[in-house]
């Protein structure tokens, strides 16, 4: 199984390589990828340097071009495909059919991975993307149970990559307009979710804090409560007179205990979320997953989850909490 790790800049990319990532996925410093945050991502020379470093170690670099291109911007997205090919990327990760179609005709030898943003959850959908655009791999949306992932691996026309660890989008990726509805900034079109420029923190008289997103109250925190980043899906709201995390708690996905099962299912690659995170996160999380995968490949019959792995991962999780998320039926 390949370990695919995130990098939002060169130090993170180096940390991923040092810690044993097989592949590093990255993005250009513009709206062509789904982590278009200020100060994040790569200039073309930086990315070329990253590819050089990875290739020198026999590792790979994928470039995410996984937002949707509006008609007026399609040329810009297509140019990004050309740039990725020119830089020597080992694959692009894309969701938009206009982008995939261009890549498949213009750069047939550059492998195309279907992004999680492509919302393909069934063999039929994957077959469509394979027939139409010759995708070499697909990243499954974080909505399937482990049984459904096993079934998908058995019937998919292409190898599958799944999310192993990181912040948990609880909505079908590519199908969530919550940020767009509140702020106008769209994950699909602009590569951002609840951007910081719309966030307003206020101190309250009782020492607590409240947080608004473009004027909409997402949550209030007591003086002693840890305060998470205000995405709509992880806020607290009033439903039927009760205030709770109506959609999801601030928590991260951690599939470590499923690792043998994912391997047995034939999952091709495990993806670590977090291009917006720093080199320390990338290095430590990569190291844990490298150790776990290597241990499993060395001696599957004696493999077990190590508590030090879980402690490190929990330390990097949102709210220090982790969940099996949709892989576990009870989450649904």
């Amino acid at each position, binding site marked *: 199984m390949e370990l695919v790790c995130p990098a939002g800049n060169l130090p993170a990319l180096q940390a991923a390589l040092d810690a044993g990532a097989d592949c590093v996925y990255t993005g250009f410093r513009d709206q062509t990828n789904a982590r278009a945050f200020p100060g994040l991502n790569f200039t073309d020379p930086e990315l070329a340097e990253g590819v050089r470093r990875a290739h020198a170690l026999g590792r790979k670099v994928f470039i995410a071009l996984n937002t*949707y*291109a*509006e*008609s*007026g911007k*399609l040329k810009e997205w297509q140019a990004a495909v050309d740039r990725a090919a020119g830089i020597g990327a080992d694959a692009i990760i894309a*969701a*938009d*059919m*206009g982008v995939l*179609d*261009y890549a498949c005709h213009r750069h047939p030898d550059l492998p195309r991975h279907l992004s999680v943003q492509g*919302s393909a*959850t*069934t*063999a*039929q*959908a994957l077959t*469509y*993307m394979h*027939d139409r655009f010759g995708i070499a791999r697909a990243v499954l949306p974080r*909505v*399937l*149970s482990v049984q*459904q992932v096993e079934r998908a691996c058995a019937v998919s026309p292409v190898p599958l990559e799944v999310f192993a660890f990181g912040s948990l989008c609880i*909505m*079908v990726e*590519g*199908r*969530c*307009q*919550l940020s*767009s*509805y*509140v*702020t*106008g900034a*769209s994950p*699909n*079109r602009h590569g951002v979710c609840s951007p910081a420029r719309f966030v307003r923190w206020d101190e309250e008289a009782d020492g607590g804090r409240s947080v608004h997103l*473009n*004027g*909409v*109250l997402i*949550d209030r925190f007591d003086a002693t409560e840890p305060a998470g980043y205000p995405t709509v899906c992880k806020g*607290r*709201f*009033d*439903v*039927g007179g*009760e*205030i709770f995390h*109506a*959609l*999801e708690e601030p928590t991260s996905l951690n599939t470590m205990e499923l690792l043998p099962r994912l391997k047995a299912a034939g999952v091709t690659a495990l993806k670590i979320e977090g291009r917006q995170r720093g080199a320390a996160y990338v290095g430590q999380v990569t190291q844990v997953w490298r150790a776990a995968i290597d241990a499993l490949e060395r001696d599957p019959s004696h493999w077990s989850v190590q508590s030090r792995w879980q402690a490190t991962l929990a330390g990097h999780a949102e709210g220090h909490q982790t969940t099996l998320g*949709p892989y576990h*039926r*009870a*989450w*649904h």
Partner: protein
Amino acid sequence: MKLSLGPNPYFWPREQTLAFYNAACDWPVDIVYLGESICSKRRELRTKDWIALANTLAAAGKEVVLSSLSLVEAESELGALQRMVDDGRFLIEANDLSAVQACRRAGRPFVAGPTLNVYNHRTLALLLEDGMQRWVPGVEQGRELIRELLNAATEAGVALPELELIVWGRLALAYSARCFTARALDVAKDDCGFRCIEFPDGLPLKTRDGQPFLRINGIQILGEDVCDLGPELLEIAALGADVLRVIPQAEQTGEVLARFRTAIETSDALPRLGHGNGYWLGGPGFDVVPTG
């Protein structure tokens, strides 16, 4: 311009659903989208019941379209989709790529539903090759984005599909594997008791300062505001819309349709009864009222 009744996102008791669509036979609507597009566990009506309703509506002179699930996960759901496509008598609204693929393979035309992510003219052209006849843009695509896409398609020599725009109803904002109604009621999704049936217009979600914000509808999240593009009908006509879509609600859907029918017949805009749709002008979707 034609008028359509979109697929009902909510879960109603069998008798209510049957009564609704029987009434629709007499409503001034040209096209009726039928079927369960949110949760395959909702079985007050089975596929054969939907097809029977489709026959009734077709006999009443309506064009019937069968809407597919927005999120397909299980093979049983793919099977149901395949039966709908195989039936062959009705157009399919494809709400995910599984449905596009099923229609494409069977050589059947389809309507591209609003969750298909058609953001550019190239994607539109590819889906036309696959058999798309009509396109319903996504909820976040407003006037300028649609105009730009259609102009680019025309310049590229693409024969445009029919354009259908949502002019009335709550906007569907997100889908998950998780059932948020079950979560709110503290029951397991696998043993949910189908309790979304208790909320015929969704379960209201308010912010902690009491502002109505969203509606929970099983695995789907909708905006609270009932959007009304009645005042923008002249712009919508100028954009080249062929079909105006009204999203069903528990009460007064017939009256809403009658209003839009009058507007079509008189080529006139309507005063706003619902909320503005911020997306239409390129902003956030909700009708922005800054709260300080």
